[in-house]
């Protein structure tokens, strides 16, 4: 499962991620983007390439992997 993060110090709330995301991961609230439906992310990374302020990161959920592979 993916992990989506938005750096709110960079986010300008422009709504680009909301518009380009095919899965409805983001909402815009009080001028900031929130990945409220992170579990719906299909890792297409369209939000990252289109974000004008480079505020978004997506990675595989590390907790599951670290637990499975390294037992932590």
């Amino acid at each position: 499962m993916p992990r989506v993060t938005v750096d709110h110090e960079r986010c300008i709330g422009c709504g680009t991620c909301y518009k380009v995301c095919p899965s409805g991961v983001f909402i815009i609230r009080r001028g900031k983007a929130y990945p409220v439906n992170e579990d719906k992310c299909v890792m297409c990374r369209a939000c990252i390439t289109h974000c004008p302020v480079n505020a978004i990161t997506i990675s595989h959920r590390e907790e599951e992997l670290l637990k499975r592979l390294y037992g932590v």
Partner: protein
Amino acid sequence: MVSKVYFASARFTPPSEGGRAREGSLPVKFRKALEQSPLPSIVEKGNIVAIKVHVGSMEVGGFRFIRPLFVRLLVDYVKELGGVPFVTDTWGIRHVYSGIQNGFGFDVIGAVLLPVSGIKENFLYEVELPNPYHLKKVQVGGNIYDADVLINFSHVKGHSSPGAGGAIKNLAMGCTGPRTRGEIHQLERRDSVGRAFQEGMVDAARAVLMNKRGKALHINYVMDVQPMCDCAPWSDIPIVPDIGILISEDIVAVEYASFKMIDEAPNTPGSIAEKLGVKPGENKWLKIHGKDPYIQVEAAEKVGLGTRQYEIIEVLPS
């Protein structure tokens, strides 16, 4: 029909009497393998040649990707053949900057590093795929589609979604657009063994190769075989000692041979393979990630992308 797979071993090969030691070293053998491979007949004078690699993670952390030196050797040879090479990877222009940080700048690789599909991944061609497993239409990166030749230079490593990624994944996820990648990832939810996901990857790889008949070469870099994809911002020690570089016109043969060699190799002491008690000869990635990577190979063979019948031609010092 048996496909030829040219193999340059990472293991130093002592030269014959009077020969120089460098002849037995991987970079020199890699160049020789390229010369023996079908590449000289694939690249015609003036051809624009896309070299698709993975230039590493966006955030600093991962460090086990293809060493830029090997890209340089390939670029130089393509130029000697009269081709016009460019090196490329996906995710837009930001990834180009990550790539430069990771050593894929012009000064090292000798070619420009371009995004597969434009600065914001909008330069895409839609390719219709007859009789797909899942994807009827695939977004192919514009710079890949427009290139006369595609050299699929892939780092073989583990991946939590298909178990392992190599030549097929480098095309399927690395040469396509966001919508297609999303559709493939969505297939992960269909089953727990990764079958639909891997079939989706085969659809995408087939679409990428559609206009490259006789104009594609697949190079698998089976070195630094780490548990996770190059996109992950962390690396671990490789699960097996370095194996080498495999080259073929047949994507199925080169992938199958690479996965087999990894399975047959001993575990690296202290690696995750050792920790999980993987035995030589076992399906290592199935044990590590719970996904059988051979599904993609079999699915690709089934749709005619190649054959699992391969013959290894080891490149030796002269």
